[in-house]
């Protein structure tokens, strides 16, 4: 037929158009859309995993010494983020959450930066391991965000690189035998 769409076009003219309303209520909360990041600052243990895995380097961290601890402000620059959700997956604490809010429009780019401040008490000591009870399973090595712990099952050795350690305390939680702890000095 010369004009295949002629009948369709003429019928469409009398149908209801399929355009959605502009501020469209149904479009909110679409199942799997990764939109604006919400940072639950209280859950964050400042392990620094998210900064490592963020490919567009959208997450920045600044420290500010306060008496009895440090205030760590972590800011997520949405104008530089690819919304891949990797940080959300790697954050064991679940402090990063990508909501389905897609209204990320701003005239001033500062409105698109999500920040959160977590207070971190100073921990005097450093991680020590009771090598006698340790079964060298390597769980602490795998869970360490900064991969400072080295465990060798064959030679039964456990050591830690203290200057990389950020004292997040994840290894203490992960150890099945509860042999890791902060030293008291």
């Amino acid at each position, binding site marked *: 037929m010369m004009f295949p769409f002629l009948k369709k076009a003429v019928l469409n003219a009398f149908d209801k*158009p399929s355009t959605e309303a502009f501020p469209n209520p149904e479009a909110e909360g679409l199942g799997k859309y990764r939109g604006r990041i919400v940072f639950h600052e209280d859950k964050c243990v400042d392990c620094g995993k998210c900064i490592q895995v963020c490919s567009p380097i959208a997450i920045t961290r600044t420290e500010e010494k306060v008496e009895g601890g440090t205030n760590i402000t972590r800011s997520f620059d*949405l104008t*530089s*983020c690819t919304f*891949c959700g990797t940080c959300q997956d790697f954050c064991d604490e679940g402090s990063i959450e990508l909501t389905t809010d897609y209204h990320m429009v*701003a005239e001033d*780019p500062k409105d698109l930066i999500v920040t959160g401040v977590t207070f971190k008490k100073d921990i005097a000591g450093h991680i020590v391991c009771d090598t006698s009870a340790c079964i060298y399973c390597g769980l602490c090595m795998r869970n360490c965000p900064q991969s400072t712990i080295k465990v060798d099952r064959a030679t039964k050795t456990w050591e830690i690189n203290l200057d990389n350690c950020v004292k997040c305390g994840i290894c203490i939680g992960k150890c099945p035998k509860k042999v890791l702890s902060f030293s008291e000095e």
Partner: protein
Amino acid sequence: MAGKITQLMDESAAKSPWLYHINTGSCNGCDIELVACLTPRYDAERFGFKLAGSPRHADIVVVSGPVTSQSKERLIRTLAQVPEPKCVVSIGSCPRSGNVFKGSYSVEGPLEKYVHVDVSVAGCTPKPEAIMEGLYRAAQILTEKRKAMHK
């Protein structure tokens, strides 16, 4: 009478914003989302948006992509050829920051270095509704610019 027509002209600047799309090295994710706005489901044309063929006809310049070195010079020249009052809208995160291409040898830095971006729509391919919201706000800015122009 003249005042009435001037007021009409200022308002209609927001009611018939024509878009001109410049792709400075984008991965085409934002380009197809922009064009998706003109499809029957989102229909940006109901607010008067229309893709214009030449920068001389444009009101809103929509830029997508991190400003690559090849496209930088052409971007600046085309932006200069758009008559006032004009708005620049950046889609996606590439124009604002270079996104994952940040620091590469051929990316010449954020768009802000070359032109003041009026509205930026974040999201790595922002949803068409978000783009339309951004364009709608840019259209409102056009009226203010038009008023400032003939003050």
